[in-house]
């Protein structure tokens, strides 16, 4: 990684609650323009890691840096250059989408073209709708629209496709790839291995507060195979999800 520019580095990150250690020495680096996946079962520490990087929680010990800024010391500066999509979050119920994005632009002291942003996430024709009338996928896309108001260098996506139907999930993958192609670095957490395999340049597998392995999905798979692992039956060339998409089409079902 020596010739690649590092934008995020996490060193010996520890987070302890009263009787519980959520993170027990996390280390990783993310380079510019990468999609970096944090994978792990529920409660492994994915969200805690992300929320420390977002400046929402203070670590018990360890060091985190984004774009040369110490997150703990320059929290406000860091918040200005990152985009955040939280796992469980909703927006003002009686404001329409345009007004929500407008309000957040003021919070970030930026003045973006709001129509462009809504268009980018495919919500332009919904600009006058209220948040609660949106489908699950649309809500997630609004979250991303809000995260883009400050044209961030790094985008954090915490389980952006949980609860979405296959069509909406694929649509979200396309959107995420597109955002990365515009030069942004993305950190994404997910439970879905297929999603990680498709989107992520590298993944870190976390379990019980520790990183078990970091590498590209391809290398991780190869390593497993090299160690003698074999799937008992030869894998099929298509999955049930492929059948589902083949039968129901790719178009979004939300209006």
């Amino acid at each position: 990684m020596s010739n690649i520019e590092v934008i995020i580095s996490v060193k010996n990150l520890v987070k302890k609650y009263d009787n519980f250690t959520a993170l027990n020495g996390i280390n990783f680096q993310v380079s510019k323009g990468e999609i970096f996946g944090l994978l792990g079962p529920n409660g492994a520490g994915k969200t805690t890691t992300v929320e420390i990087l977002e400046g929402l929680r203070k670590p018990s010990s360890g060091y985190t840096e984004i774009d040369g800024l110490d997150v703990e010391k320059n929290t406000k500066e860091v918040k200005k250059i990152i985009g955040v999509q939280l796992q469980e979050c909703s927006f003002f119920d009686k404001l329409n989408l345009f007004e929500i994005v407008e309000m957040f632009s003021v919070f970030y002291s930026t003045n973006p073209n709001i129509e462009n942003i809504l268009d980018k996430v495919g919500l332009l024709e919904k600009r006058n709708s209220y948040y609660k009338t949106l489908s699950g996928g649309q809500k997630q896309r609004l979250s991303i629209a809000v995260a883009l108001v400050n044209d961030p260098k790094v985008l954090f996506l915490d389980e952006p496709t949980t609860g979405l139907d296959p069509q909406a999930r694929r649509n979200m993958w396309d959107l995420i790839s597109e955002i990365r192609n515009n030069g942004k670095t993305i950190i994404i957490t997910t439970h879905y291995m297929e999603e990680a395999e498709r989107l992520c340049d590298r993944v870190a597998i976390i379990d019980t507060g520790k990183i078990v392995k970091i590498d590209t999905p391809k290398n991780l798979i190869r390593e497993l195979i090299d160690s003698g692992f074999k799937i008992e039956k030869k894998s099929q060339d298509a999955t049930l999800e492929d059948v589902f998409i083949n039968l129901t089409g790719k178009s979004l079902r939300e209006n």
Partner: protein
Amino acid sequence: MKIYLIIAKSTIKMYFRRRQSLFWSLFFPVVMMLGIGFFGFGQFSPPKLGIVNYSNSSESTIFLEEFTKKDYLEIQMISVSDMEKSILEGKIDSVMIIPSNFTLDSPRLEISYEKSKENIALEFYDISQMIITNILSEDSEDKLGKNIILKEQIFENEYQGYKGFLVPGIVALSIMQSGILGVVFTLISYKTQGVLKRLQATPIDPSHFLIGQMISRLLIIVIQTFVLFFIGIVILNIDIALGNIFAWINIIIFSVLGSILFLFIGLAISGASPNEDYAAPIANLITFPMMFLSGVFFDSDVLPFWLSNITNYLPLSPLVSSLRESALYGTNTIELLPELMTMIVWIIIAFVIGIKTFKWE
């Protein structure tokens, strides 16, 4: 600055788009005002007579004793200087003056009343005649008739009746409800829905958001106060502030103070309640007793002395009495200083609890 503007703009938009908030802060108080104001509970109370006694003869003592035996009347001894105010405030319905040269044979009584209370004054006229006749135990009605004088007093300000009493009470009640419930319910829904957490992820200090919310709510409550008074003036025909500009200034001062007070109490409740499920019941537990004990619907004088001594210091009581005094009698701010001080003390208490206990998550 721009942050406060956008928060104010958004909060006010959301307020008008949310039907429940309009219902509780405007529709409901108006219905209450019109309902109770038109049908008037005030008339169910016993006729109240104030007596100014200039005589110390034994005959007047006997006469007074007989009068006080009539337990369907409420008799109060008052001084002549309190006469007008007591009638205007509706504390008494009419005044009977017993002259220094009072005798039972020639009882030159004078009964004063305000125009709208003529029937009650006539009742007192009949009762006094009856008492004297009974004491003298002879048929002396003709002779007495000429000696008891009924005097219709034209007071500068008209007695505004129960609806006049009620309107400022309801206005104060609505300030409390909008202040406490508005804050508690919005903050709790923002907290549980993760809106506050999302705000924390932005570079602004989230307290800006809280302050912006409070200022917008304050504005909404002051507007609400004026709308409710206006409805009282137009529909219930009440003379607010008696054309006195200072009374309106008082109304602004006290409605702003009241809003701040109850917004802070709302903040304190949302902070101090252990979780979201407790906040609404706690808010009701705090507002409900004040609704009945702080003089909104009836004067706290009717409560037992020990109780009214306590209830007069509840947060709502000084707001009710200062708005009522300003609206009905144009009382000046200096005279309302005790109310002002009580409110400021509560504001400080609520602010400290709110700041110490408020949690963003």
